[in-house]
């Protein structure tokens, strides 16, 4: 049971760190990374929620696993897109 709360606390911590980074900025790269940290916090939360039935001896919730997988794919492509845009922005002649 303790491990479950530990995971939840880590997820909340990641959310907090990410939000702080996003708020403080101001570099665009830092903001993109902060968004990733927030994303990691949310996925961590979802994975820990999937772990909840295991505490009562039932199999883990596979719907949440599928959601996290989908979410990861979306997050990776969004990050790639943001980094590509940032690259073009920095390479632009001033």
């Amino acid at each position: 049971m303790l491990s479950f709360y530990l995971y939840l606390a880590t997820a909340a911590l990641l959310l907090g760190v990410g939000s702080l980074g996003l708020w403080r900025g101001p570099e665009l790269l830092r903001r993109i990374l902060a968004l990733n940290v927030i994303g990691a916090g949310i996925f961590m939360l979802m994975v820990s929620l999937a772990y909840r039935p295991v505490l009562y001896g039932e199999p883990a919730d596979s719907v949440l696993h599928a959601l996290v997988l989908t979410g990861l794919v979306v997050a990776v492509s969004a990050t790639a897109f943001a980094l590509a845009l940032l690259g073009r922005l920095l390479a632009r002649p001033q």
Partner: protein
Amino acid sequence: MWPAVLLVTLPLAAALLMLLWPRRARVLHFAVAVGLLPLAVSFLLQVTVSGEQQWFLGNWGPLLAIRWQADGLTTLLLLVSVTLHLLVSAYVGSIQRRNPLPAAFWPLSNLLLASLQALWLSRDLFNLYVCLELLGMVAVALVTLSGDKALRPALDYLLYSLFASLCYLLGVALIYAGYGVLDIPMLAGQLEANWLNAVALTLMTLGLMLKAACWPLHLWLPAAHASAPAPVSALLSALVVKGPLFILYLLWTTLAPAAFLPAAAYLLASAALGAMLFGGIAAIRTPYSKSLVAYSTVAQLGYATLALAFILRFNLPEFVAAMWLFVLSHALAKAACFLAIGELQHTLGARQVEQLKGASQTMPLAMFAFAVAGGSLIGLPPSGGFLAKWALLLGLWQSQQFFWLLALVVATLLSAAYVFRVVVLAFDRAAPTAPDFSPQRLPQYLALLPALLVWVMAVFSLPLLTLLKQEL
């Protein structure tokens, strides 16, 4: 089921094929865009005759499957998106010789349509997140088509949009934590008024309001919409911001527990008031013509938000009708405005409002399109905008909200001010800005077409209202 599936998969498949064969992109694009129109019309008729339809995709059980549902509202939104998609791509085709957009426009606009259609149909919280994220990313990619100057607004738009979808996703995760269900009709009426649901709904609402550019979370919109190419701005303003608004409507009318409704109504109504006043004032003050139209989008979304706030408070059919009539008429009118302004801007070589002087003489068709669409934005009869405003006024009168009647009058005066700011200049024929080249007729007619469709909305008001299941 087939029309709904085709409406999503055809543009998706077309986008992928266009990436494989870029040379055939335009032919394929127009073949698909023209083919989708009768499909959407027949689907609309089918749903009006035989009533609401729903399916579980892939025939999975209700807990695992994604539910698609098509009611009158959804089919209407499907039809409007297909129509605008066709119109805007015809406009892009017609200016192809003069100032071609990059070839990436064709697959991207198909992806935009596909994700939007999936959003209108889906009734699954997580699937809606995926649609939202897709819609946001495609919209950002479309903004970058106008070259280096649009990169910064596009990146800002992307960051805001990613943050908004993460907020929404966190809300979805919290709701799933409590109920283990993602299907909206199955969750309807189940949510209790506890603090976990309050946090979840607040996060989702925050994310959706950010995406729908509700005041004061609209800061990304004017820069992004003004720096995109004109046809793209037309798509973004007309369709993309309406997606999150639709989810917001679903969320608060079917999901939210009754105890939260007054607070949400208060929040939405204040956001709407801010949007109508400050969006209108910003549109009056801005020196650039495209920013004017973009700020007017912020102001106009305020009316729809206000109607949503009153749906939550009073549950009168007038407000539901008003909200969706605002959305539909704004979609058509704003497409016409952006296409007309884009055409004027390009032909006159003028980015500033001041330089539109004498446009009624040099480019009467485009100016007429702008004026007709502007009439609908103000709410002058006969137009869809008038119909929407009439429904809203009727509802406000019945529920005796006299402060809001006054607010609506002030907001209408503001929209009249920014529309007439352009129109008056256009009739100032003393020293008209000379066009850089002889104006093209076809793109101007294409800008006029959606404006005329707003008039047609007024003619077909009765079937429209019955389709929205509302009887006034």
